[in-house]
């Protein structure tokens, strides 16, 4: 692919000038939120509150209010954790990896995707904290010097998780914030509201848009992209180690790291797609977030869907080929055991539904992509449920096999995390530009008068 072909795709439609773009993007920040926004906000915030009530009750009474038991020690808690961490992948993937690969169409979607990443990781972060039996001691998972000279166990994948997730959160947050600086400066310069002025002034760190600033800014951005890229791969690899390094059939699999990363990209892109389809419609940003963007994302979805499909089948094959009874039983049990319906839901949502995107008609159809994205999101949640619950509920000794039934608190906390996620996103689109103003101007027709791209 050469530079010319990229340029041929129009990334900003409608022959807009820069001022129009600035105005269009900052419009939601200038006006007072509509009734619809408040309605939606109160809905999602109520659900989030409900979730927090459920969490409060859990902390008050004990993990017993959930359906977890012996043998199923982890269920919705860790399923939700892995689900949200997975969703949190797309943002950094879009902003870092696609940046390094010069996928210039990313500019329209990276801001929202990164914000979504941060919110998803925040949602994910709740679960390791609340899933422990004594959350008030959860800080013991950090290597804090103490008078008892007890150190953490560096052999435990859960500890790696703590480091991986916290590092990922910090780096993603900084990357997102650095990308925001030029836009914050623009907002500072535009606003007449004194409060906003002060806030944006502080946040924009005295950005003057000088040549020198831009040069340093872009270097910093590039470095952050380079730092983030391995993190995208490492976080979910490490999350997968929670399972892969254990000895439970169905968990103890070497394929898990790449499989989890593919799954994370898959689930994350589906969520970004959902958010963007709604955002572009509401804020009338169809000219920056074009059908081409969505189609590109659908292609990624199709690819990632095939990858996870491949992983599902290879797992099965390996289980059979290993001639290990326990291993093969675990997979037979997934597909034909009492939780078979979750397995086939997963297969339908993750493997079959994206196949529609082989056809351009479906790739470019908004309703189809909404349905598929929702299905993929559901499917990816079930994937984690299948991995966690069906492996645990029937392991080595048949005497200790059991069943897991979620309680109202399990559902409440899952719903609450969704509520929190959407609440945070709703606040975000009203406080910060959801599309990068400065970057979008760089991909406008005429941004490079000589028709060439030189952004190294």
């Amino acid at each position, binding site marked *: 692919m050469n530079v010319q072909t990229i340029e041929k795709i129009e990334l900003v439609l409608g022959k807009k000038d820069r001022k129009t773009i600035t105005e269009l993007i900052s419009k939601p920040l200038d006006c007072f939120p509509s009734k619809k926004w408040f309605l939606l906000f109160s809905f999602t915030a109520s659900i989030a509150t409900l979730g927090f009530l459920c969490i409060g009750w859990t902390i008050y009474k004990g993990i017993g209010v959930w359906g977890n038991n*012996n043998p199923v020690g982890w269920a919705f808690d860790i399923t939700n954790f892995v689900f949200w961490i997975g969703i949190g992948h797309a943002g950094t993937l879009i902003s870092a990896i696609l940046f390094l690969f010069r996928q210039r169409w990313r500019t329209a979607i990276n801001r929202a995707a990164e914000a979504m990443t941060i919110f998803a990781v925040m949602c994910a972060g709740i679960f390791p904290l609340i899933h422990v039996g*004594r959350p008030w001691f959860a800080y013991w998972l950090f290597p804090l010097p103490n008078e008892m000279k007890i150190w953490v166990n560096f052999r435990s994948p*859960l500890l790696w998780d703590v480091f991986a997730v916290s590092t990922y959160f910090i780096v993603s947050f900084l990357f997102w914030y650095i990308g925001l600086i030029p836009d914050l400066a623009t907002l500072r310069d535009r606003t007449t509201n004194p409060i906003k002025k002060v806030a944006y002034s502080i946040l924009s760190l005295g950005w003057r848009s000088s040549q020198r600033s831009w040069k340093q800014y872009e270097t910093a951005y590039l470095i952050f992209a380079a730092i983030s890229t391995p993190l995208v791969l490492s976080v979910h690899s490490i999350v997968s180690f929670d399972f892969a*390094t254990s000895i439970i059939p169905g968990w103890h699999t070497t394929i898990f790291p790449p499989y989890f990363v593919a799954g994370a990209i898959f689930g994350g892109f589906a969520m970004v797609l959902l958010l963007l389809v709604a955002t572009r419609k509401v804020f009338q940003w169809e000219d920056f977030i074009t059908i081409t963007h969505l189609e590109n994302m659908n292609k990624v979805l199709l690819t990632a869907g095939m990858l996870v499909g491949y992983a599902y089948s290879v797992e099965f094959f390996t289980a059979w080929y290993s001639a290990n009874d326990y291993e093969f039983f675990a997979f037979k049990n997934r597909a034909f055991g009492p939780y078979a319906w979750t397995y086939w839901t997963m297969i339908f949502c993750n493997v079959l539904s994206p196949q529609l995107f082989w056809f351009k008609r479906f790739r470019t159809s908004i309703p189809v992509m909404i349905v598929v994205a929702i299905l993929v999101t559901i499917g990816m949640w079930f994937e984690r449920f299948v991995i966690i619950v069906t492996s645990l509920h029937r*392991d080595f000794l048949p005497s*200790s096999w059991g069943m897991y039934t979620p309680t109202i608190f399990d559902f409440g906390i899952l719903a609450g995390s969704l509520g929190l996620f959407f609440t945070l996103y709703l606040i975000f689109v009203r406080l910060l530009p959801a599309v990068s103003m400065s970057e979008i101007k760089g991909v406008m027709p005429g941004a490079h008068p000589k028709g060439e791209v030189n952004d190294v």
Partner: protein
Amino acid sequence: MMKDQDKIYWKSFEELTQDPRYLELAQREFMEEDDGSDFFTLSRRKFLKLLGASVALATTACRRPVHKIFPYVRQPETLKPGVAQYYASTFALNNHSYGILVKTIEGRPIKIEGNPDHPLSLGSASTFAQASILELYDPDRKRKPTIGNKSVSWDEWNKEIISLLKEGGNKQIRLLTESITSPTLRSTIEKFIKKFPNTKWYEYEPISQETARQSYQHAFGRPNIPKFHLEKADILLSINADILGGRLDSNALLRQWANKRKITSPKDTLNRLYVAESYFSLTGSNADHRLALKPSELLLFSLQLAKLLVYRFNLSTDSNIRSLLKSVPDENSSSYKKEFLGALAHDLSKNRGKSLVLVGEQESLELQIVGHFINSLLQSYGTTIDTKISTASFNNGFNSLKSLTQEMEQGKVDILITVGGNIAYQTDSKINDLFKKIPHHIRLSLYNDETTALSHYAAPLSHDLESWGDSQPETGMISLIQPTIQPLHDSRSLGEVLMSWIHEEGWLTELKTYWKNHIYSKQPRMASFEAFWEAALHNGVVFEKVTGSHSFTFKPEALHNVMKNLDPRFRGDDTRIELQLHPSYTVYDGRFANIGSLQELPDPVTKVTWDNVASLSPNTAQKLGVKQGDIIEIENKIKLPIFLQPGLADGVITTSLGYGRSKGGEVGIGVGSTVFALGSQFQHAIRVKKLSGHHKIATTQAHHSMEGRPIVLEAPLEEYKHTPDFPKHKTHTPELFSMYEEYPYPGHKWGMAIDLTSCVGCSGCVVACDVENNIPSVGKAQVLKGREMQWMRLDRYYETSLEHDIKTVHQPMLCQHCDNAPCETVCPVAATTHSSEGINQMTYNRCVGTRYCANNCPYKVRRFNYFNFNNSIEYPQELGKNPDVTIRMRGVMEKCTFCIQRISEGKNAAKMRGEPVLDGSIKTACQEACPTEAIIFGDLNDPHSKVSKASKQSHGYHVLEELNVRPAITYLAKIRNPHPKLEKFKI
């Protein structure tokens, strides 16, 4: 100063004298110069003082209430704080009793273990004996004497009763007790009867010896039940006898049986156990061959066996008997039953004098007589059946109760005294109406139970652990019951109450006098009675020489009567559903229903907790159109949930007694349904009706097949002799190498060996572990969710290679203390670690509760505190907790520790003695309780220890060895001893 006309009221001299300073002060509102104004003129010092004070106030505001502990004013001479003391005592239940050791710490009994010196215990205690410590501390026990609903003092209560008893000499007094094995108490009751001559004494137990006594009377002319010697029998047949678990003397029988069930080399032999039964008993699950029959087929089966022995094997030439048995129909069909009978008769006839047939004591008179007949054919009397010693038995069945109920019906009873037992619950509801006709019902009981509710005067009985007593389980053996704690409540023992009623010396004096006159006098060796008494208390058992044996010559007319009265019904009728009842393995006849740990102890066969269920075979269920959890109604009286149980004869429903209590404590009320409504028999022909609705049955094991996995390894004796290391061939574990240097374990290396051949799954270890380690019971709702807390469990798997002969294996499963423990690596906070002595340790204080360790445990033996299960501890339960074991809070993981507190104790004791730790000096609680000595614990580093010898046996293996977790527990594969004709060994 007030003036009232001329009088002057004054408060002080100053006021009286109208001192000016006083007048000034009286004008002011505040006596002290604190109008708050100086707050604004704070000095630096004062500010800091105030600040300090508020900080101190804020930090100390919410303090827990202070509980002061009081030191001993004079420390008891032998008591060392924190050091356990053991007292020999006796556990008595129904007609059986055996010696126990009560472990007390600072005067509180905390654990019951068997008395190794008592021949009926030999160091192990049954589930009931062990759980009686929980009964002692049960908060629902009756606490005060009551008259009507009014609490009164014992003095008032006794005064009332004595005046009642004395009033009018013609008052008809009836005394109804449970079985009393105490000779002193029996003599005291006789004294009571002498004092109040209008008294008649009845004994009643729902699980009685009445029929058994009758059968011996018919067969041999004496009602006494002889003692069995399983250790002398090579071939055993149990017909609904449930010798290995369901009988009260099973603890002793198990040890005898297991003596012939120990394999150390291919040269060893095993006994062979045949079981024909109409319910699935623990004995049946351990049989080499098991035949499931309908209750009505048992008699025919036993007669067919007798006929085979007489005709085919010519064991009797008595023409009279031959002609009697001639009419017994042969088993024509080429069924499994015929093969079973053939093999059994073959075995029995070849082992005359070395075989034993046991028939359940609740079986019909006829069946028991046929049992005696077969035993006499086999020359068991004098060999496997003791002709000298007879066991305690009483006429305590429903028949003996009949005259009482008749009298009650006719209104002839003026005063009824019920002691212990629970007649209102244990019989059908008719008796409850009879109680209304009795003007004065005096009740002595442990709980406010169903019978207490029908009484006018009720008083709390002391627990056996709180009172003096004695017990004689069989001739020639007697032991003392001594109190190990002051009565927790305002209670008295029956002996004490009787003594106060007949105005004699105290109960202890009575006991001593009886012992002096009746027992000491027969013991020639002791110098003084005091020395004898001390020795009897110390040893826990006294023996008397039994001389003279009884003749056991079978009377043919008994068999004649059996044949004559042979009920045509017992020829088998396919259309009827038959109900077979049996005592509960966990709550017995309901008297242990209020003990949570027993309710939660899974039935050893069904693994059902907190319920009795209608067990039936899948075929029967299909016929009746019912599924697991459906509710059926039996005879319009009893509602029971359906439980599918393989290994039952078609057309049979079985269930256990002891459930459906309506009073007597919070825990037991409403658990299951009572089956006493059907009457006193254990077998009924019933009509069944399906009801709507569904019942959730809480089982601790939902899956019953091993799925072909090498978990419990077993082989017939022949195969073992051919390939002694057969377990090695059942799993293929390549030798694995480690990149790291192995830890050498320089000191001890604790390990365990569990012999699956002699483990019968009696669950004594589970209760021992519960009590020793303060394990809470969690209730049915939590068991349904799979959150039971027992550290030790007994996995039970069925093997259905043969259609009729379902095989069962029991496997104790506990933390395997793996050297490569998967739980240890995954804990992020290092709360579970490996000790330098090879123990997988759990640090509760460090645990944050991620549950990762439990997920990664291949044996699933870790238990998580999903709630604060110990929140419900109420007085006096806390007194019974083992002070050496932490009470775990919610949110932490727990599991078997190999009784680390016992290891420390043993090591400390050895250190104090200046000796190395002796093999066998440290016993885990499960090992201590095991009646068959199937659990061996010790130091694997000591090459001479029992455990290292056992672990090196050729048929030893590790469960899931291929995972390379390297467990410290070696299982010795199960060796069965099938009859070659019934099960052919293939090489």
